[in-house]
């Protein structure tokens, strides 16, 4: 599916540019965006190194396990395939906590660790049920305070930059709940 989407975005773009006279822009975009991707990946190094370093200490010192035990009752129902005391639980919880507080750059490294642990559990290169549930939660947002949006609103002199926090939280909760529901539906029908 990803192969098809990936190839089709580029195919449609190039063919359309032939008739639309935008080949110049397409040509420029290819190399500019490749450059942008490198900048993005290099930028990820700092947060990945820092957070995976800190989380490695937290795991070996037993802090992650304490966090897991505290918050487990909430998450255990969402991930029935993961054993209760498995380190994957700890990373999933850290990722969710970081997301809720809008700490996107702390959430990503913890999410990657969670995926790694879940892969060890399943042992294949096919996405497991828990992985998809976890991704569904992450793609639907989870953020309570959209800091970037508030910053942009302030920049354009909004009278009340934070007035959209309420609507954002309601929309996030609705999309997260539907993500969980849709995920369950797909799982049930895929069995």
């Amino acid at each position, binding site marked *: 599916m*990803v192969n098809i989407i990936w190839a089709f975005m580029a195919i449609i773009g190039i063919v359309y540019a032939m008739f639309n006279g935008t080949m110049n822009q397409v040509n420029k975009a290819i190399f500019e965006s490749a450059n942008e*991707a490198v900048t993005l990946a290099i930028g990820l190094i700092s947060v990945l190194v820092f957070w995976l370093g800190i989380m490695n200490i937290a795991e070996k010192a037993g802090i992650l396990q304490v966090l897991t035990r505290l918050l487990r009752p909430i998450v255990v129902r969402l991930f029935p395939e993961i054993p209760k005391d498995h380190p994957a639980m700890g990373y999933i919880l850290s990722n969710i906590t970081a997301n809720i507080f809008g700490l996107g750059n702390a959430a990503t490294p913890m999410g990657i660790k969670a995926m790694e642990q879940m892969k060890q559990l399943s042992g294949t290169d*096919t996405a497991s049920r828990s992985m998809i549930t976890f991704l569904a939660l992450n793609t639907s947002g989870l953020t309570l305070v959209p800091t970037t949006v508030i910053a942009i609103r302030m920049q354009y002199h909004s009278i009340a930059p934070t007035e959209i926090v309420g609507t954002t939280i309601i929309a996030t909760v*609705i999309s997260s709940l539907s993500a969980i529901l849709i995920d369950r539906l797909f799982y049930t029908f895929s069995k």
Partner: protein
Amino acid sequence: MGIITSISTWLIPCFILLVLIVSTWKKVPTYELFVEGGKEGVKIAFSLLPFLLGMIVSISILRSSGALEAFVNLISPFLALVGIPPEVVPLAFVRPISGTAALGMTTELIATHGPDSFLGRLASTMQGSTDTTLYILTIYFGAVGIKKMRYALKVGLLADLIGILASIIIVTIMFE
């Protein structure tokens, strides 16, 4: 509101403090473990590069050709019939595909229509209430080498659709 933002700024330093105090107390080799974990971060970042680059280039070909815009112009009259303002249709389509492009569009909508207008509030809510599905799938599946995604993309995109519709309905109810 003020409480939530101050929790956000205090959370990380306090978490680091807690980790360092507990691990020193337990006589865990902190610095060595930090370096060991960090090395893994370097590896992950480099192995992610081809995944990110491939996806970002393909998306930017589609956008720069004008094909996405043409498609949006074609369908926005139909979406207007069900009450979706044509101005936010491009944002709705780009939000799950490209985070930077969506942020650019949100900024533009806020700049053109004003942050406190209906469209400004709607764009803000749409931008804040969901994350970039394609980016998250690329990063997480790429980092651990998952080749078969099964129904993950469908779940993510359907949830995005519901989130966008929810944003439109909620902003209409609360601000109109």
